[in-house]
């Protein structure tokens, strides 16, 4: 406790990332949840590597552990055992605050629901990560946010509050926001879960485009077609990675 306090007060120096590392690397990761009913092993001995620029689709049945796996990589959750390296940083060793700072600059996160702060406009939502992580000079932030919104096709909605946007539009704003600090890694947990097929496909186009620009992308999806658009499909079942294959080969 005391050390965490101190680390919160101290400047949050991040360990220097190792050069030449994989974009994501999980080594012997195990995750156990302790619940009232007893222990539950959500991830078991997961070893997993993603190279920079890959577009990985994570699939599996509900409750298989996809979100848990993804949360290890974003630092939203911590492994019970094992190591998690992202872009050369051992995030299993970082404090909460270090993770927050690291995540803000390194990972763009997109969720399924409740993405945007309801009291801020789309534009402000996109500016928020730059604000928190102090990336870009303040004067240039709204310009950059607008460009990002235009890039995802909702530039004309910039001044609306989230409640006035459709689900698809909200998701696009969320994607624009995850790009705000220009992170090398983007992680999305069922970003199209509550969108219709057409809108979902348009959103996925955005991710494909980003992958082509060199971003590393990890998305969780239930949709076979969407999964097929990635460069690799990882199948999770009962807390284990049961297959990892280049897209198109998974089915066989």
């Amino acid at each position, binding site marked *: 406790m005391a050390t965490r306090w101190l680390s919160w007060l101290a400047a949050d120096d991040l360990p220097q990332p190792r050069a030449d590392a994989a974009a994501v690397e999980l080594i012997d990761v195990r995750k156990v949840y302790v619940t009232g009913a007893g222990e539950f092993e959500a991830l078991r001995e997961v070893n997993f590597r993603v190279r920079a620029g890959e577009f990985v689709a994570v699939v599996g049945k509900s409750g298989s552990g996809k979100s848990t796996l993804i949360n290890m990589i974003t630092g939203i959750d911590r492994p019970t055992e094992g190591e998690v390296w992202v872009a050369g940083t051992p995030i299993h060793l970082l404090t909460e605050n270090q993770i927050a700072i690291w*995540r803000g600059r390194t990972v763009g996160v997109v969720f399924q629901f409740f*993405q945007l702060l309801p009291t801020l406009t789309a534009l402000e939502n996109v*500016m928020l990560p730059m604000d*928190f992580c102090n990336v870009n000079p303040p004067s240039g*932030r709204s310009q950059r946010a607008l460009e990002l919104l235009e890039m995802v096709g909702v530039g004309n909605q910039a001044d609306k509050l989230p409640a006035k946007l459709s689900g698809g539009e909200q998701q696009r704003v969320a994607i624009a926001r995850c790009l705000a600090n220009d992170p090398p890694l983007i992680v999305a947990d069922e970003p199209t879960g509550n969108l219709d097929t057409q809108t979902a496909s348009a959103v996925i186009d955005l991710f494909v485009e980003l992958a082509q620009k060199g971003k590393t992308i990890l998305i969780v999806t239930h949709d076979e077609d969407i999964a097929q658009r990635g460069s690799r499909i990882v199948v999770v079942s009962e807390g284990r990675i049961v297959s990892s294959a280049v897209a198109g080969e998974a089915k066989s």
Partner: protein
Amino acid sequence: MSSLLGISPRWHKVWADLWGNKLRTVLVVLSISVGVFAIGMLYSCYLMFERDLTNSWRSASPASASLYADPFDEELVDSIRSLRGVKEAEGRRNADIRVKTADGEWRQMFLTAIPDYVKQKVNIVRPQTGAWPPGDGDVLLERSSLQNLGIAQGDTILVETPAGKKREMKVTGVVYDASQIPSLFSGRYYGYINMDTLEKIDASRQLDQVNFVVQPWVLQGQATEPIDAVGRKAWSKLEQGNTTVFWLQVNKPGEHMLQSAINALIWLLAAMGALSLILGTFLLVNTVSAILAQQVRQVGIMKAIGARKGQILQMYLTLVGLYGILALFVAAPLGAVAADAVTRFIAGVFNFNSGGLALPWQVIALEAGVALLVPLIAALWPIWRGTGVTVREAVSDYGISTVEASGWLDQRVDSILERLKKLPRPVLLSLRNTFRRKGRLILTLLTLTLAGTVFMAVFSVRSSLYSTLDEAMDYFHYDVSIGFIQNYRASRIEQEVMRVSGVKTVEAWGMTSGRVLRDERKESEDEASKNVFILAPPIQTTMVKPRIVEGRWLIPGDESALVVNTEVVKDSPQLKVGGPAVIKVGTRRLVFTVVGVVQSTLTGPIVYAPYDWLTAAVQEAGRARSVQVVAQSADPKEQSVLGRALEEHMKKNSLRVQEVNVIWELKQRIRAQFDIITTFLLIMAVLLAVVGALGLTGTMGINVLERTREIGVLRAIGASSLDIGKIFVIEALCIGLISWLAGLILALPVAAVLSYQVGVLFLQNPLTFSFSFLGVAIWLVLSLLLSVLASLLPAWNASRLSVKDVLSYE
């Protein structure tokens, strides 16, 4: 928009939380304001009292002590002035006489003649309006006497001289005498004349009082002993001049004579301020916790996109800080206005000059400190906890606000609700809602309960004050008493009284005054005790019914027996039942045996001796100086009329009246003094009721907001606006009732303690405790009313929401 204004998005979010939810902001700001207002008002009142009271009083150059004696000449004053340790001495002449005012009523007036109005040195009387100094045959009135006396400048009053002659005097001006106890408290009216006018009231041009101020080096802090020592030297000086001295009155240095009463009022205000602050802070904590509970996901999202806990902490603390600043803007001016009003009121009552509103920087600094620091410190824990939520907890549905019963308490509540199954659905739903958020419920209940407790306790203090008064007044079994200037034959007095119509029974008493001495030695005469009244009723008197504290009342066969009241014992603690008491009456030293102690009746130190023995001892056998009368009518107005009639009749028959007391009027006057305390207590009660109302409205507002989705679902399955409104009103009524009950239980001990304290502070005696069921009933009605009102607004808001509004919420 915000980018145009140049505010960064996170501060814009803070602004939106503040501005976007105005009802909530108003409630939070008001809950902070209540405490800031009370504390600010208290502090600035305190500072004004300090300044004004001290100024008014110091500028009058108050006497360190006063000596009262038989008339003496001016030279004696000079010899006292030249005593070592005396800085300034001044003589005056007093006359306690009856005056008849324009409305035809006779009243008691204390006339003071001052040798040189221009060169006053001690207890300085200052001109207010009209003539200065008083001309021959004219009188100036003290300003605190004006209100009740019904005389204006320019009126003529009729005075009765000690010799029984009637003379007219003109009221030509108004003065301010800071050294007299204001009329409201003393029941006396003060008039000022010049030395020549003394002749007009048949008095010699001599003095009978010396006021003196000691040299600063004599004083040792607030001790009265050094002044006493100088006073005794002055006493001997007067006696060397062949003057009989009655009494040395020593004042506590540097302290206004009503300081303790004012301090008590300030204590009362302080208690009120602290309580409002505490309760307001509870409300704030409640609301801030609710804001954070409601924004768990937003906190999670911010963390997910890179916000550190410190940054989020800062945002919410800023929000609270802004609430505090707004509260400061609301509370500071109100506090100043209230402080001004309170100081004016107190200045009027206690007769000092209010120097007007002062708003020194200390007050603003204190208010700012309270408005900012207290909320920030109080909100720190809920904010710390709320912003500590992890991203996973926030975005997954695990871990947050599990509704199912988990703890012992919840299971208890659920099982109780289970048994109440027969209640209608909406009632059940309300009850379950009420108990769902335990932390908030507890804080709300605590606030309301405390507010209710004090509200009810305040009413009990009020009724205790009144029953103390009633009990004291129960002592009097007569309606009118008349004191005479000299002794007359008892049978003559009684005969004359019976001639006046409306008199039922009459009893003539011996009456004199004296000083209690420590023992029989001659030297003990130097040790001043306060004057005591010696009443000598017939042994089987039916006119008074004293409450025996120790020993017994006078019985037939008693001779030198003495009964003393508690006030006397306080001053002369050496008096014990069974022990001796030495009292100096005039030049005689009388030795009694104390047989009993009776409760004092708010009328000062009194001892009782058997009529036959005392009148014989002072060689006035068969004579009396006072008469007590029971009226035929129980109507207070008629008793007053009887009092006047008796006075007129006595005067007509050349019985010279010193004073007439109508018991009913005495009671009225004491009640007026008690009402000052009661007024403050009621202000306190109202403030607490406001806090309670704010608390309940806040809680209900939060509850409605939190259950917007639930309301949507209810509407979707066909609930009418009325049904939904009912749920919240019933919930609020439940909270109101529970807090009323809890408050009722607490009110009894709290009221007892508060009554005790108020009694000790104001009357130097605990009050006779009387629990006020009126207060209980008022708070019940008020709680129920407040509950309905507090839930109506949020409930109305909620029932207005359409299904679509609700489902797109958040």
